[in-house]
């Protein structure tokens, strides 16, 4: 086989996406699985088979709903890691980005779509391309606490609009506080943890 092998002319992306190899099934998953199995067994023997199946069907449907979102989150993370220009990330939310970087990260977390299942791959991608650890944490915190999709999909049906708006307004400073304390912690004790 032959043909073109056009080394991308304007692609200064070094191989930044090397990830650690992991065991497909680690102990934490096994532990959670054990707890889940125990809970399921308790429901089965205490509440009977019908209740057990009812919960199982409900959760399987939820699993189906979540699947597509997880897939989207993984793809977004993988593409973002390759596309985000390092210089831009470093400038916006890098180590030298200061307080403004935390604000940008907070804003980013609040507006990017997705639920809790999509955050972590994207946050890892940020870090890989050179984002500051405090800004990354502000981003995650903002997404978990202020993300509008989460509120829209899950929270408002349970609590109503007033409560959710109130809770969100009170929570606005939290990502910045988290980012600042993460920077402080990273400076004082984080060095001992060595590599990321």
């Amino acid at each position: 086989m032959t043909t073109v092998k056009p080394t991308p002319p304007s692609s200064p992306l070094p191989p930044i996406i090397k990830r650690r190899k992991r065991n497909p099934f680690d102990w934490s998953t096994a532990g959670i699985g054990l707890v889940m199995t125990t809970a399921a067994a308790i429901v089965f023997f205490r509440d009977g088979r019908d209740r057990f199946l009812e919960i199982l069907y409900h959760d399987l449907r939820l699993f189906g709903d979540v699947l597509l979102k997880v897939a989207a989150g993984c793809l977004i993370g993988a593409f973002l890691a390759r596309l985000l220009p390092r210089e831009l990330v470093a400038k916006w939310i890098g180590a030298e980005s200061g307080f403004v970087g935390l604000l940008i990260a907070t804003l980013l977390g609040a507006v990017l779509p997705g639920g809790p299942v999509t955050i972590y791959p994207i946050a890892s991608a940020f870090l890989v391309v050179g984002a500051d650890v405090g800004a990354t944490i502000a981003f995650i915190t903002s997404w978990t606490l202020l993300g509008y999709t989460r509120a829209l999909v899950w929270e408002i049906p349970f609590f109503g609009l007033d409560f959710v708006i109130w809770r969100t307004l009170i929570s606005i400073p939290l990502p910045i506080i988290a980012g600042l304390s993460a920077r402080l912690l990273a400076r004082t004790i984080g060095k001992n943890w060595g590599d990321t």
Partner: protein
Amino acid sequence: MTLYIVEAMLWLLVAALALAAAVRGRILFRDGLREGTMDFLRLLPKVLIGVVGSGFIAAIMPPDITARYLGPDSGFLGVLIAVISGAFTPGGPVVGFSIGAAAIKSGAGAPQVIAYITAWALYAVQRFFLWELPVMPRRLVWLRLLASLPLPFLVAAAAMLLGRP
């Protein structure tokens, strides 16, 4: 309905990123697609365990007791209990909200419930082990956890000071 809008927005973003990658080069596009797919497949069993299991965990938790210790007069102790219960509530998308809503209906205070939701959102133990440790660099995970520890207390204090509108 809103569920589909979110879904559509997510996939629009995927499409836009994939397009941008494809414009930059076929290899970039293919690598991104492959890695995204591999990540997804690797996460699949964890998601299955987490989502299917959380319903069973919610079913064996005693809601009446949760509500009793989170009342409006429970003060800081109630907030502390709320934070701890939030941390140990399974991290599925519905569980924490449904318990929080149930607690409010059975007389829990708003600051306590906010502390509960915030703690659950920030450091649910199950999500910590299932999602964060496998997916993110270890240093980031621990730093985030440490930095997040005071947040539910801060937000509960703010809720107590400001009061409900």
